[in-house]
């Protein structure tokens, strides 16, 4: 059955077998043979305007679907430009396969034109990486790359392919199995530990679910909902976990952490059992670790054994896939039966306390008659989304307001650069998501800083005629850095003012689509509605109050119970 074909064609055959429909990339000298094979191949190639955005778009595709996102770059500068995207995918555990061209095998190590040690550079940026030096290794490596990227704790895998490997002709026999003897994927979870967890859950007076991105990665939402139905335990979801439970679920409190709600952080601090599901006790969530959930026993479920005990030693560690582990835990809880536990009164008091915290300091977006408050903008997007739109963001103030005020009815609607916190992520991620989900309303909600980092992708947007709504939350500042300078650097605002933002209407028109700037609160709703009605892309530049800050806020190094709820008075306005 072996067919004679080039390495480039063989690669595309393997991608097809892996179910790849499209990939994002930018051609160059050494990938010419690949692009020649792409020319009349059914797999769609999406030309971006910078390799970093190829990786971000692949991430957007992967985050919106759960499938592996694929990106491609040439050797040297093409490959080095991928690095930020690879680390972004690594930090947030997103399945991405990156294909890079390399100079011909006989030139490797000779400082050839556009040569870089991609294999070496990306070693610490990927879950695993490969340099393919022989054509006969290529098919196996490609399937291994997809398997590693998508199994266990997902992550990016890079395959570096020299030009002569693309060009070489060889007999292609489809690979039916791969063997990675040292690559362990844990799924089931330890039965004894699951029973112990159920016991702790039954006995706890103030239990709390602390759920994260692992719930989304494993597709554990149905099991989590069943768990919530069985136990009625309140839940906080981290930045990466938003959408794992629908925002209107009665057990969902909100996001905890540095900019989490008062209720979420107080619940974390006062719970006696923390049920940590697919989380990594990140410093942005825990604040000062020694003061984090000080009264709680901890059940920690994660697919990655290296996460267990990394920051907090759990009482019950469970290594496994959340979908499976939660499913089995639910069974154990169900078998125990619907008894009224001795802890029922304590549970009721716990819920009462949480409701009181919610009422004490609710998260409500401020609205003004004279200027658009950034939180108001987020609330308006939320009104139009109704919890159903895909929303991609960058990092910073707009991201935190979005996390505070947006609702998500299901997982994979909220695409944000969490761990790495990459500016410029939102627009390319929205492009990837819209290609994957043409049926969905997709917003790129970005700051005026991050937007300008991936601004060239407006061209991709126009090129592919994707109806992404780019909404710039424009306060004229690198807002989060400014907020920290205000609070911790004596209000000495250094290098954070962003002047000369382009005219949005003209900018969009230059790319051939519609855009507009709004600054008045009474115009905002209608402007957003018009953007959503527009069949094509839309750029809406929203001028918001320049000096708004994100609250609540846990200062760096403080306990999360030591939240600052509102700006210190009076607010000093710099000249």
């Amino acid at each position, binding site marked *: 059955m072996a067919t004679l074909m080039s390495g480039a064609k063989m690669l595309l055959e393997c991608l097809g077998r892996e*179910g790849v429909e499209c990939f994002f990339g930018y051609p160059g000298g050494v990938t010419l043979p690949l692009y020649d094979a792409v020319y009349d191949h059914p797999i769609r190639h999406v030309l971006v305007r910078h390799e970093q955005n190829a990786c971000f778009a692949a991430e957007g595709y992967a985050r919106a679907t759960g499938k592996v996102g694929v990106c491609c770059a040439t050797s040297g500068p093409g490959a080095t430009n991928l690095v930020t995207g690879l680390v972004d995918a690594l930090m947030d555990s997103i399945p991405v396969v990156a294909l890079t061209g390399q100079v011909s095998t006989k030139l490797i190590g000779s400082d050839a034109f556009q040569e870089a040690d991609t294999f070496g550079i990306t*070693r610490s940026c990927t879950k*695993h990486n490969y340099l393919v030096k022989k054509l006969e290794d290529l098919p196996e490596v490609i399937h291994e790359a997809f398997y590693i990227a998508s199994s266990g704790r997902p992550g990016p895998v890079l395959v570096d392919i020299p030009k002569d490997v693309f060009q070489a002709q060889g007999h292609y026999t489809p690979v039916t199995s791969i063997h990675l*003897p040292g690559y362990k994927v844990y799924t089931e979870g330890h039965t004894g530990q699951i029973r112990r967890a159920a016991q702790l859950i039954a006995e706890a007076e103030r239990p709390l679910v602390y759920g994260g991105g692992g719930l989304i990665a494993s597709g554990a939402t149905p099991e989590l909902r069943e768990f919530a139905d069985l136990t009625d335990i309140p839940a906080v979801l981290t930045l990466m976990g938003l959408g794992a439970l629908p925002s209107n679920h009665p057990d969902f409190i909100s996001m905890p952490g540095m900019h989490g709600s008062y209720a979420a952080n107080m619940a974390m601090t006062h719970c006696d059992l923390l049920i940590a599901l697919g989380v990594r006790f990140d410093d942005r969530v825990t604040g000062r670790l020694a003061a984090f959930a000080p009264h709680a026993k901890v059940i920690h479920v994660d697919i990655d054994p290296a996460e267990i005990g990394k920051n907090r030693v759990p009482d019950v560690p469970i290594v496994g896939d959340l979908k499976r582990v939660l499913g089995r835990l639910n069974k154990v809880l169900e078998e125990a039966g619907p008894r009224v536990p001795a802890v029922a009164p304590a549970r009721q008091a716990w819920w009462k306390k949480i409701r009181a915290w919610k009422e004490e300091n609710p998260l409500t977006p401020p609205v003004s008659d004279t200027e658009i408050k950034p939180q108001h903008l987020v609330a308006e997007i939320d009104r139009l989304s109704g919890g159903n739109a895909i929303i991609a963001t960058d990092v910073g103030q707009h991201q935190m307001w979005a996390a505070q005020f947006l609702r998500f009815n299901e997982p994979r609607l909220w695409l944000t650069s969490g761990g790495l916190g990459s500016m410029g992520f939102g627009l390319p991620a929205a492009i990837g998501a819209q290609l994957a989900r043409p049926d969905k309303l997709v917003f790129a909600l970005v700051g005026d800083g991050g937007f300008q980092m991936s601004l060239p992708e407006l061209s991709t947007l126009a090129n592919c005629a994707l109806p992404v709504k780019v909404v710039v939350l424009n306060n004229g500042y690198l807002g989060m850095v400014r907020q920290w300078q205000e609070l911790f650097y004596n209000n000495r605002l250094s290098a954070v003012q962003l002047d000369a933002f382009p005219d949005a209407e003209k900018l969009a028109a230059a790319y051939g689509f519609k855009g507009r700037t709004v600054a008045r609160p009474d115009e905002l709703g209608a402007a957003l509605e018009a953007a959503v009605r527009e069949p094509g892309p839309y750029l809406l530049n929203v001028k918001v109050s320049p000096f708004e800050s994100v609250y609540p806020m846990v200062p760096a190094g403080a306990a999360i119970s030591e939240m600052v709820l509102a700006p210190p008075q009076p607010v000093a306005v710099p000249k």
Partner: protein
Amino acid sequence: MLQIISLLVENKPGSLMRITGVLSARGYNIESLTVARTLDPQLSRMTIAVDVDAALRQQVVKQMNKLVNVLQATDLTESPAVSREMVLVRIRTTQESRTAVLKEAEIFRGRVVDSSTDGFAIEVTGDPEKLDEFVDVMRSYGEIDVTRSGVVAVSLEARKLRLQPPVPTRGAEKLEEVPG
């Protein structure tokens, strides 16, 4: 105390870089590292001696176990294990001290591997502390050159090596249905 990590790894390009990367990314300096093939030529045994904070030792080993090319990483620091190292010492001796040097070498069960009018080359094997002492003693007799092999260690406990079975690729079933 140095942490001794023993690893069974796939003999593939980049394996060493990935493993040392776990340590260098955390700013740890490797004291010694040995690698050689095992009975199975596709696998290598690696022993690393490294000064890691006690709190991070487990984490480091877990991160190594996560690597695709690592079949097993084990912390031998506090488990029953034997560590050995070899040292080659070249010593310049005077005519008068030759006998004394040979006597000392004998005490350390050293073997003379070269002898000349200038002095000796002596090979000693033992645990690293014993070699430290030997080197100190030799230094008291004259100018020396020292080359140490780095620690190799073997666990005295039977450890189960769990290897993962092959997995089918996507759509492999469909392929097999196609009549050949």
